[in-house]
């Protein structure tokens, strides 16, 4: 029964992915990709990876979808959203099929791992949190997460560097035009309180249950985006100092905690068990603020106040 469910789900995923790649039209491809993200999130639930499912639904389907739709809007203003049809590319199809076949072959010859994570299970009592995924992200493999938060910042700086000189002092993203008192404005008033609650809950619960800084931060970023689209808040300008603090605080606290670990435990980014839980929570809260701000700015895009040239 459950195998039938998996088969049906995977058939749906593949069908939607095929429609994304081979269907006609840019807009249709984007919409199919959003549906694809949601279906893959269900797939992650089936694999038992709830934290990944949350991240995939919030980031893979949600934020990426908004990002692509906004890009479609920008390209349409420039008159460049029309897709040229690509006929059947025999060589590309062969290359894709060969790659898929090679991966499938790899699956069957891959040696079974020894029972995963005996080290992890032994280390969990020292982690300070009960969600093993959070423990890996913020304690055992904290290097990855620290560098990732810096990669996010680098991407944002790269994106901002694409701003035209005359737009530089403008507000981030395209000018929004929702009618005051209209449907979107009302929707934007109802949703943020609920979203804030869910976002903060995801971070708080992420220590011991499912969730975490990335999922919670994404929800908070989405709240900000909805509020901006509804015209309730105006996006900041690139030069806004307060927001620079928000962008930097996560990596900064992370590095400070790492240095504290170096002093207390003798190794950078090592959290001694007695202070592990408060340290992880502090890092998570700071990181959530930075992730939320960075992701929201990444999706808003560089400022673009003028009309299309």
């Amino acid at each position, binding site marked *: 029964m459950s195998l039938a469910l998996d088969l049906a789900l995977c058939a749906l995923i593949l069908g939607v992915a095929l429609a994304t790649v081979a269907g006609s039209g840019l807009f249709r491809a984007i919409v199919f990709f959003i549906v694809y993200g949601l279906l893959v999130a269900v797939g992650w639930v089936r694999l038992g990876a709830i934290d990944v499912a949350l991240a995939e639904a919030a980031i893979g389907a949600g934020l990426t979808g908004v990002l692509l739709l906004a890009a479609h809007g920008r390209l349409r203003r420039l008159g460049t959203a029309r897709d040229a049809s690509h006929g059947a590319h025999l060589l590309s199809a062969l290359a894709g099929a060969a790659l898929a076949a090679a991966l499938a072959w790899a699956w069957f010859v891959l040696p079974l791992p020894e029972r995963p994570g005996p080290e992890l299970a032994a280390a969990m009592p020292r982690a300070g949190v009960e969600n093993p995924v959070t423990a890996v992200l913020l304690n055992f493999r904290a290097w990855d997460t620290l560098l990732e938060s810096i990669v996010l910042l680098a991407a944002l700086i790269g994106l901002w560097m694409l701003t035209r000189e005359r737009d530089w002092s403008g507000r981030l993203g395209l000018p929004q035009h929702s009618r005051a008192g209209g*449907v*979107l404005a*009302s*929707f934007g008033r*109802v*949703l943020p309180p*609920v979203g804030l609650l869910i976002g903060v809950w995801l971070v708080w619960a992420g220590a011991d249950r499912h969730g975490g800084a990335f999922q919670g931060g994404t929800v908070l970023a989405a709240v900000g985006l909805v509020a901006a689209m509804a015209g309730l808040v105006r996006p900041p300008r690139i030069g806004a100092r307060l927001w620079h603090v928000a962008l930097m605080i996560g990596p900064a606290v992370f590095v400070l905690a790492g240095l504290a670990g170096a002093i207390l435990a003798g190794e950078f980014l090592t959290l001694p068990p007695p202070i592990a839980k408060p340290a992880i929570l502090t890092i998570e809260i700071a990181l959530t603020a930075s992730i939320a701000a960075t992701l929201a700015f990444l999706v808003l895009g560089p400022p673009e106040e003028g009309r299309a040239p």
Partner: protein
Amino acid sequence: MADLATIALTAAGLFFFVAGTVGLIRFPDTFTRLHALTKADNLGLGFIALGIALQAETWAQVARLGLIWALALLAAGAMAQLVARTALEREDAE
């Protein structure tokens, strides 16, 4: 008893989803399609949420299902309005 009710309710929900999807594919223009999609699917989701709620172990789970349904309802309603207005503006422009 609860199991039977769950089966009946989710089946009813599925029926409405199928009806909504048929409407989405068969109806001629954006407005009638939106009508089929939002009305039938919200009802279908409500039936399914109700059916699952009968299987819930705690009241907190029931409350969460209710919250999900309410949020989906709100989002679907607001988005239907926005899509309809865009379609209307585009029609006027043509």
